[in-house]
C-alpha cells in the first residue's frame, strides 16, 4: 500500500510530507527531489523506481504530488487516489498552488489522516468529508450525538456521497451533456481516427433521498423497446436517432449491476455538482469542421500556406470560439496573413499562426492564406510539419446523443417528478482535433 505522500513545490522543496509505513524514511523525500524533480532530462515515466522504492507522481500546475511505496501496490489505484486527492483539495481551497497549500497545511494533514489509513484509501468524497473536516477545525466538537452517528454512517455507508435531510424549496436539476470530439485527419481528408468522449455532468438540488432514472437514445435500449412490438419501419426511422455507445463508465452512485442487466441508469444523486457518466462513441460522429490544408514550399526560404475550414452542421446553429493553429517552422522570420473572416496573428513564441473567429454558422466556409519567410539554415533535418489543430465550441452533441428523460422519485417527501425543474444543455467542444498537413 501507499507508504507515504509528499507534496513539493516546483523547486523541490517539500510542503507536505506524511509517512504511513515504517519502510519509508525521510531519505525518500530527498530521493524523489534529486532523481525526478531536479533531473535534467524530461520525465520518461510517471512511475520511478529508486533504490527499490517506487514513486508515483502527478503534477498540478507547478506542484508535484508523489506517492511512495516499497510494495507491489495497485498502481492504478495510487494514481486514481492522487487525482482524488487533487479533487478534494480543489473542493476545499479551489486552486492547488504553493500558497494555498502552505496556507492550508494543517487542513491537508487532517485530510490525509482521514482519507488514507495505513496507506489504504478511505472515503474521499469531498461532500462527506466537508461534514466533519472543516477549516474551522472545531465544528466537530459541537455535533450532537445524532449528528455524529449520522456523519459516521454517511462516511462508511452505502450512500457515502449523500447525506440525509437535505431540503430545498425549489427542486431543480441541471444536466449538461459535454462532449469533446477528437479527430485525426490525413492531408487528403481521410479520417484516420475520430471519437467522441462525452460526459454527463449534473447539478442537482433535490430534497430528501431521491431515486433518479436517466434515459438517453442508446441504441441497445431503443432496439430492445422496439423489439417489443414496433414495426421494422419504425426502427429504421428511429435507427437514425439512436446512437451506438462504445463504452461508458459511471459515478459510483449508479447501480452498475442494474445497468449490466437492464441497461437502465438509476441512482441516488450526490448533492450539488458531480459527473454522472462518461461515454465514448466512434460511429456516425458529426465532425463539426473540416480543415483543408495546402502547404507549398517555394524555394528554401519561403512557404505558402492556405487553409480552408468548412462548417458541417445545421445552418441555424452557431459555433463559437473558433481557433485554428497553423504551426510554422522554427526558422520563420516573417509571416504575412490574409483571412476572410476573424483575426489571424503570427505568434513567434508558439511557432504558430493563430487564427481566431468568434462565431461561425453551419454550412459555411472560410479561408486563410499566409506567406512564411524562412531564415536560411544549414540544418540537414527537414522541418517536420506538426498537424494543424483546431478549437471550437458547438451547441449540439457531435455524437448525436439525446437525453430522453430524467425521472426523479422521492417517496417520503411530497414532491413528484413533474415538480422538479429540469434544464438540459448540449455543448460540443474540440478535443484533439488535428489535420496533418
Amino acid at each position, binding site marked *: *500500500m501507499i507508504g507515504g505522500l509528499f507534496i513539493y513545490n516546483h523547486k523541490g522543496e*517539500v*510542503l507536505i*510530507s506524511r509517512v504511513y509505513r*515504517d519502510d519509508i524514511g525521510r531519505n525518500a*523525500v530527498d530521493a524523489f527531489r534529486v532523481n525526478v524533480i531536479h533531473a535534467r532530462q524530461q520525465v520518461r*515515466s*510517471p*512511475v520511478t*523506481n529508486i*533504490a*527499490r522504492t517506487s514513486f508515483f507522481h502527478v503534477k498540478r500546475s507547478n506542484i508535484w504530488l508523489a506517492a511512495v511505496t516499497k*510494495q507491489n*501496490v*495497485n*498502481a*492504478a*489505484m495510487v494514481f*486514481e487516489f*492522487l*487525482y482524488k486527492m487533487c479533487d478534494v483539495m480543489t473542493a476545499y481551497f479551489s486552486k492547488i498552488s504553493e500558497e494555498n497549500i*502552505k*496556507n492550508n*497545511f494543517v487542513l491537508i*494533514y487532517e485530510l490525509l*489522516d482521514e482519507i488514507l*489509513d*495505513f496507506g489504504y484509501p*478511505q472515503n*474521499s*468524497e469531498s461532500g462527506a468529508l466537508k461534514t466533519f473536516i472543516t477549516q474551522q477545525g*472545531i465544528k466537530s*466538537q459541537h455535533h450532537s*450525538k445524532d449528528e455524529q452517528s449520522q*456523519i*459516521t454512517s454517511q*462516511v*462508511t*455507508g452505502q450512500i*457515502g456521497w449523500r447525506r440525509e435531510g437535505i431540503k430545498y424549496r425549489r427542486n431543480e436539476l441541471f444536466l449538461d451533456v459535454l462532449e469533446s470530439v477528437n479527430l*485525426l485527419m490525413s492531408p487528403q481528408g481521410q479520417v*484516420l*481516427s475520430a471519437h467522441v468522449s462525452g460526459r454527463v455532468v449534473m447539478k442537482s438540488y433535490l430534497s430528501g433521498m431521491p431515486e433518479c432514472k436517466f434515459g438517453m437514445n442508446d441504441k441497445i435500449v431503443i432496439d430492445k423497446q422496439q423489439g417489443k412490438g414496433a414495426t421494422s419501419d419504425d426502427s429504421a426511422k428511429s435507427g437514425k436517432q439512436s446512437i451506438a455507445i462504445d463504452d461508458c*463508465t*459511471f*459515478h*459510483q452512485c449508479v*447501480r*452498475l*449491476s442494474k*445497468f*449490466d442487466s437492464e441497461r437502465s441508469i438509476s441512482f441516488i444523486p450526490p448533492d450539488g455538482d458531480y459527473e454522472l457518466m*462518461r461515454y*465514448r462513441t466512434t460511429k456516425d460522429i458529426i465532425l463539426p469542421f473540416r480543415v483543408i490544408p495546402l502547404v507549398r514550399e517555394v524555394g528554401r526560404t519561403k512557404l505558402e500556406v492556405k487553409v480552408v475550414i468548412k462548417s458541417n452542421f445545421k445552418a441555424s446553429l452557431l459555433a463559437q470560439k473558433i481557433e485554428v493553429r497553423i504551426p510554422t517552422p522554427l526558422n520563420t522570420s516573417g509571416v504575412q496573413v490574409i483571412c476572410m473572416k476573424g483575426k489571424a496573428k503570427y505568434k513567434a513564441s508558439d511557432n504558430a499562426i493563430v487564427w481566431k473567429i468568434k462565431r461561425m454558422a453551419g454550412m459555411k466556409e472560410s479561408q486563410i492564406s499566409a506567406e512564411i519567410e524562412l531564415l536560411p539554415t544549414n540544418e540537414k*533535418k*527537414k522541418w*517536420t510539419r*506538426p498537424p494543424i*489543430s483546431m478549437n471550437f465550441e458547438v451547441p449540439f452533441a457531435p455524437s448525436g446523443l439525446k437525453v430522453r428523460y430524467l425521472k426523479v422519485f422521492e417517496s417520503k417527501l411530497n414532491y413528484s417528478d413533474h415538480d422538479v425543474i429540469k434544464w438540459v444543455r448540449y455543448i460540443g467542444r474540440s478535443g*484533439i482535433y488535428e489535420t496533418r498537413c
Partner: protein
Amino acid sequence: MTDSKYFTTTKKGEIFELKAELNSDKKEKKKEAVKKVIASMTVGKDVSALFPDVVNCMQTDNLELKKLVYLYLMNYAKSQPDMAIMAVNTFVKDCEDPNPLIRALAVRTMGCIRVDKITEYLCEPLRKCLKDEDPYVRKTAAVCVAKLHDINAQLVEDQGFLDTLKDLISDSNPMVVANAVAALSEIAESHPNSNLLDLNPQSINKLLTALNECTEWGQIFILDCLANYTPRDDRESQSICERVTPRLSHANSAVVLSAVKVLMKFMEMLPKDLDYYGTLLKKLAPPLVTLLSAEPELQYVALRNINLIVQKRPEILKHEMKVFFVKYNDPIYVKLEKLDIMIRLASQANIAQVLAELKEYATEVDVDFVRKAVRAIGRCAIKVEQSAERCVSTLLDLIQTKVNYVVQEAIVVIKDIFRKYPNKYESVIATLCENLDSLDEPEARAAMIWIVGEYAERIDNADELLESFLEGFHDESTQVQLQLLTAIVKLFLKKPTETQELVQQVLSLATQDSDNPDLRDRGYIYWRLLSTDPVAAKEVVLAEKPLISEETDLIEPTLLEELICHIGTLASVYHKPPSAFVEGSRGVQHKRIPIQSSESQDTGGAPGATEAPAAVIPSQGDLLGDLLNLDLTPPTSTAGAPPGPPMPMGGMDLLGGGLDSLVGGGGSLLTPLSLLWLPAMKGKGLEIMGTFARRAGVIQMEMTLTNKAMSVMTDFAIQFNRNSFGLAPAGPLQVPTPLSPNQTIDVSLPLNNGGPVMKMEPLNNLQVAVKNNIDVFYFSCQYPISMLFVEDGKMDRQVFLATWKDIPNENEAQFQINDCHLNSDAASNKLQGSNVFTIAKRTVEGQDMLYQSMKLTNGICVLTELRVQTGSPTYTVSDRHTHALWVMIPARAGV
C-alpha cells in the same frame, strides 16, 4: 487562514521560543506553537527536543490541536519511546470517548506509534473498537489490526485479533468488510500458507455482495482479494465473472483494471466453446479502450497492462488498432507504450494504416520515439510478409532523410529483413552502402558489415568497403570486430583471388594483436579452417542460416502468466515479478492462473501452450531485456513451494581441490579468499573479484567491482544461469552508480535458492551474467558447498542413528584427508562454524570417531563419520546421505 507564516521562521534559538510558547497558558498560543512545530517537522527540521512539551498539549478538548499533537507523536514516538508512554493514558481514555470520531482517531493514531510498550496498551482498546457499535470505529479498527501485525505479528495472533478480523468480513457495513478484507489480505501475504482468508464459496458470496455496496476503494480491495481465489469448477468461475463484469463500467480506472484481472484469470477456467466465453471476450475490449481517455499517468498504467493482455489474448483488442495511434501531445511515456502495442496488433488487415502512422512518427522530434518507430517498421515487415515490400521502401525513404540516427536504425532493421526474406530485397544494398560513412553506432556498423559480407558477391567494391573498416579495427567495439572478421572471411570464400591479403590482415589483427579472447578464438578457428580444409570452411561459414521468427520481445509465458495475475499493480507496470522489486517476504509468493478443469482440458490445453515464442530476433537492447526477464522467472511448477526434489544424479565426488583447503589448517576464516572472476580485459574494463559467504543464514555473494575503463559505468544488473541448487539473486545488484573510472566498490548480493534447478558440472559451478551500460559479461565461478549447509542441520542423536542405518550402503563413500594436524575436538569446533554439527563422538582403538550431520538448502541431509587417528595426520571420512546423490564432505569449510 494564513498558515504559511509557520514555514518562514528559521532563526536560532527557535526551539527555546517554541518551548516557551508550548507551555503558554493561552490555548491559542499553544495551538500556534504546535502548528509551527509541525511546519518545521515537514521541512525536515529536527524538533524532537520538544517532545515532552508537545505531548503536554495532548490533553485538550480542541480536536484540531489534538490531531496536530497526534501527528507529531506518530513522527517522533519511535525516537523517544520512554516519553511516548506519557501519551498512553490519553489514548486509552479517548478510545472510550462518546464521540465515535474521537474513538476512531485514537485507535488509528495508536496503531501508528511503533513503540513496543505502547502496543501492549493498545490491545484492550483495540478489542473494544473492533466490536464498537459505530461502523466508522470498526472500519478504523480493522486497519489497525494490520498495523499492529506489522509491528508485532505474534501479539496479534496471541490476542486472537485475526479471528475477530475474519468475523468482520460478515459485517453489515460494506466499508468495514472492505477494510477487513484489505487488512486480512495484507496479513495473509506474510503468512503464505496460513489460509487466513479462507476463501470458500460462502465467503466469496459475501465479498461479491459487499462489492456492490462499498466505496470505489473498497471495491478495489475486494476485487484484488477475489483475484487470489481459485474457483472449484467452470460453473463457479462463470458465476463470479458474471457478478464482476458490471464493475467494468465504473468510473474509477483501478476498479476497472482489478475487474479485468479477475476476469482474465477466471476466464482461463471456462471452456472455450462456451457462449459465455465469447461474450466475456467481447465485453473486455470497450473498457480497456476507455482507459485510454483517462489522465496520462493512468493511460500509462493501462497501456503497460494492455501490453500484457494483448500478448495473452490477442483476440480481445485485434480490431482496436486505431485507438493506439499516437497523438501529437501525448507524453513521451504514453507514446512509446502505444507504439509497442501497435506492433503487437499489426496484422495483414491493418498493416497499411499502421505503416502510414509509423512513417509519420519517424519524423517526430523525440529521438527515442523516432528510433522505436523505425524499428517498428522493420518488425512489421518481418511480422506481415505481404507488407515487407512496402516496409522496405518506407525504410529507404527514411534513409534518404539522412537523419543520422534514423539511417542507423533503419540499417539495423533492414539486416533482419534480409535474414527473414533472403534473396528478395538485395537491390537496396547500393543505397545502404552510400551511407556507410555516417554510421557511428556499433550496432549499425555491425549490421552494415554483416550485409556487405553476406552479399559480397553482389557488391563490386565489397573488399574496399570492408578494408575501410579495417583501418580502425582496434578502436571498434567487439561486436563490430567479430562481425568484420566474419564478413571478411565470407568475402574471401566468395572471392578468394583478390582478397587473400585482406583476410590475412584481419586474421592477424584478430589473433595476434587482440586481447579479446572471443575474437582471438574466432580468428584461430577461421584460420585453421581455411588452412586445413577450404571446402569445409565454405560449408561452415556460408552455411544456410535458419529463418528468424516473426514475433519479437514476447514476455516469457510463465512470467506473462504471473504478471496477468498482477494486473493493475506495480508488477504489471514494471513487467517484472514482485520478487524483483519488493523486499522481504511480501509479494514473493508467485501467483498462477488457475488451469481449466479437467473435463474441458482437451479443448483448451495448458495456458500459454499455443504461443511458441521460439527464436527471437536479438534486437538491440531488447535481447538483454529478454535474457533478464527470462531468467527472472521462477519455474511455475515449484511456485510457492520449496524447490522441488533435486534431479537424480550419479555419485560424484566433490572433494576435488577442496582437500587442500581442508588441510590448510590454521585460519579460522570461513570465507574463502576472493578470486578473480572477471578480468578487466574480458569485462571491457570491469573487473570483478568475488567470493561467497554465509551470514546470518543467508548466502551472500560478495563482489568487488572495479572500473578500469575510462568511462563511467551505470545500470548494473546480475543474472544466474540455472544451477544445481537453484541459487538465484534475492534482489537486484545494488551498485551505487555511476561507477567512475578507477573506482572500486564492494557489493554483497544476498542469494536464495528459489531459482531454476539444473545439474552443473562440476556440481557447484555457477554461471553468472553481469550487465552494465557497456555490455553483458559472462563468467562462471564455483561456490563452496559449505555455503549451502543450513543452520538447523543438527540432528537428534536417535534420528541420526536411525537414519544412518536406513541409508543404503551404496550411498556411502569413503575417502581420506591427509596432512591434517588438528585433533578431533578442534576439528569438530571448526566444522561447527560451517554448520557441520557433531552429534556424537566415540573412541575406538585409539581412533576418535566423530559422527556429524549437515543439511543442505534443498533439504538433503548428509551424515558423516570422521575417523581421526590420534597422532596421525590422516582423516578417514565415510558419509551417507538421504538421497542417492552425491558424496560430499565440507570441502571448503576451511577446517
